[in-house]
């Protein structure tokens, strides 16, 4: 089973996004960027599948600026075999990303795509399912556990009511949720080894797909602020305050 893992370089999850004063977007100058946390989980899962003998080859792809290569290197250091960098300085929408991923999935002849359930910058949560539909493949989204049996995967999914299990035939798309695994930290020797792993350089033009944006950002503004309230002395003071507010 050949596995493709799309990974996105995003603002580090520990950094609080700051809106630019001209409301044109979020300020990404000189801030820490990292691999989207869900994509780390996808990478870990693919590496584990390979160690378990269930994946023959693992390929990461990142679509983004030059720096996206760092994200690819991180995945390679975690154990992925090779990378594809689709270079663009545009901030492409999930629809365009999915089209590029479709072309790559078909060209590489992959059996499984493991994407994150959501990129924590745009919070769209769209790419994985879009890709599955474009390919006409089944999907197991929000995966909490993935087991391979023969030509299908059994995927336990985190849904609003609890867990749901589905069985999907391969080829398929899976999207990862938080409890699927705990991603490893790459060790120094692996980071060194990753420097020699190949990264294929591409651009969106190589795929002949329509990537024009469909949404225009009118503005990006600060959310309604909340200010710190008061610190109450004790439980009785808290109860009195909540009664006064009429919420209990």
């Amino acid at each position: 089973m050949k596995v493709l893992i799309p990974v996105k370089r995003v603002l580090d999850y520990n950094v609080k996004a700051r809106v630019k004063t001209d409301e044109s977007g979020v300020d990404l100058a000189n801030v820490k960027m990292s691999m989207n946390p869900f994509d780390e989980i996808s990478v870990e899962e693919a590496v584990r599948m390979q160690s378990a003998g269930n994946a023959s080859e693992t390929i990461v792809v990142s679509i983004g600026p030059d720096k996206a290569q760092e994200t690819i290197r991180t995945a390679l250091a975690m154990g992925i075999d090779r990378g594809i960098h689709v270079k663009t300085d545009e901030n492409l929408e999930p629809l365009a990303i999915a089209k590029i991923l479709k072309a790559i999935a078909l060209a590489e002849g992959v059996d499984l795509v493991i994407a994150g359930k959501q990129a924590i910058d745009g919070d769209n949560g769209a790419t994985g399912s879009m890709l599955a539909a474009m390919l006409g493949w089944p999907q197991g989204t929000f995966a909490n556990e993935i087991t391979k049996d023969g030509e299908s995967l059994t995927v336990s999914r985190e849904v609003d009511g609890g867990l749901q299990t589905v069985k999907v035939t391969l080829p398929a798309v899976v999207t990862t949720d938080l409890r699927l695994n705990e991603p490893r930290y790459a060790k120094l020797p692996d980071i060194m080894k990753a420097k020699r792993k190949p990264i294929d350089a591409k651009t969106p033009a190589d795929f002949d797909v329509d990537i024009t944006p469909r949404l225009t950002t009118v503005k990006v503004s600060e959310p309604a602020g909340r200010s710190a309230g008061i610190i109450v002395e004790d439980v009785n003071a808290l109860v009195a305050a909540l009664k006064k507010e009429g919420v209990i």
Partner: protein
Amino acid sequence: MAILVVAEHDNVVLKDATHKAVTAAAAMGGDVDILVAGKGVKDVSAAAAKIAGVRKIIAVDHESLRRQLAEAMQEIIVPLMDGYDAIVAPDTTTHKNYMPRVAAMLDVMQISSITGVESADTFVRPIYAGNAMATVKSSDPKKVVTVRTTAFNAAAEGGSASIEVIADPKGPFKSEYIGEELSKSDRPELTAAKIVVSGGRGVGSAENFAIIESLADKLGAAVGASRAAVDAGYVPNDYQVGQTGKAVAPALYIAIGISGAIQHLAGMKDSKIIVAINKDEDAPIFQVADYGLVADLFNAVPELDAAL
């Protein structure tokens, strides 16, 4: 302009999230129809027909739709979209699962988890865990929109829409339902509750969560949790409140033993009153709390429980 809203239901009960999605759709302007896709959905369809301002109910009743799995939903919805300018669904996991498939087949960009409607093509949505609000305008001929239900009021009852039954999906599908493990609870649903009591890593264990549950029951509240509490196995995954869990906006949110990470705040900072109980006076949760109590939760929570 005609808009198709997809109903949230469990084949038995029509959920309030539907009414909220209807409000969002109505704000876009035009006729609003509701799709009820499921198995044994006569009652659900009848309930949907009673929502005020709805033109018609489209019902499809088939075994393959019992769990509203992605491929069957896609097969039903995509052809229906010939007759609609927009599709709107709540951003629950059921709809998050297939809506991007619909968008892909229509070759349009989905607009996810909107919190505001400016016009038929312009929407407000949180990005970066709600630390920024983006206003986006769609140039697509059809809009595919999911709705953060906590941001909209429920549409009123009082309608009498007609019900039209459409043809079943044919399949075959490449995915199959195997089973589910749903959390059973007599408490109100997390996203709809007026009061939510949430516990974090500070609660320390699954056994200790009993004090959170007891307080919740005293208040008639739902129980929520931080990711750390879910990861540690204190409570099931569906309790998670936050950027990548559920968004809640109750009248009262009580955060106990939760530090207040960006990702947690993303799911609860629109609550009306926030109370934080934490032993660390520097915990970031206090920066958003209306009332903070700096205390050991193992003393404060039972005391609060007893005082109510």
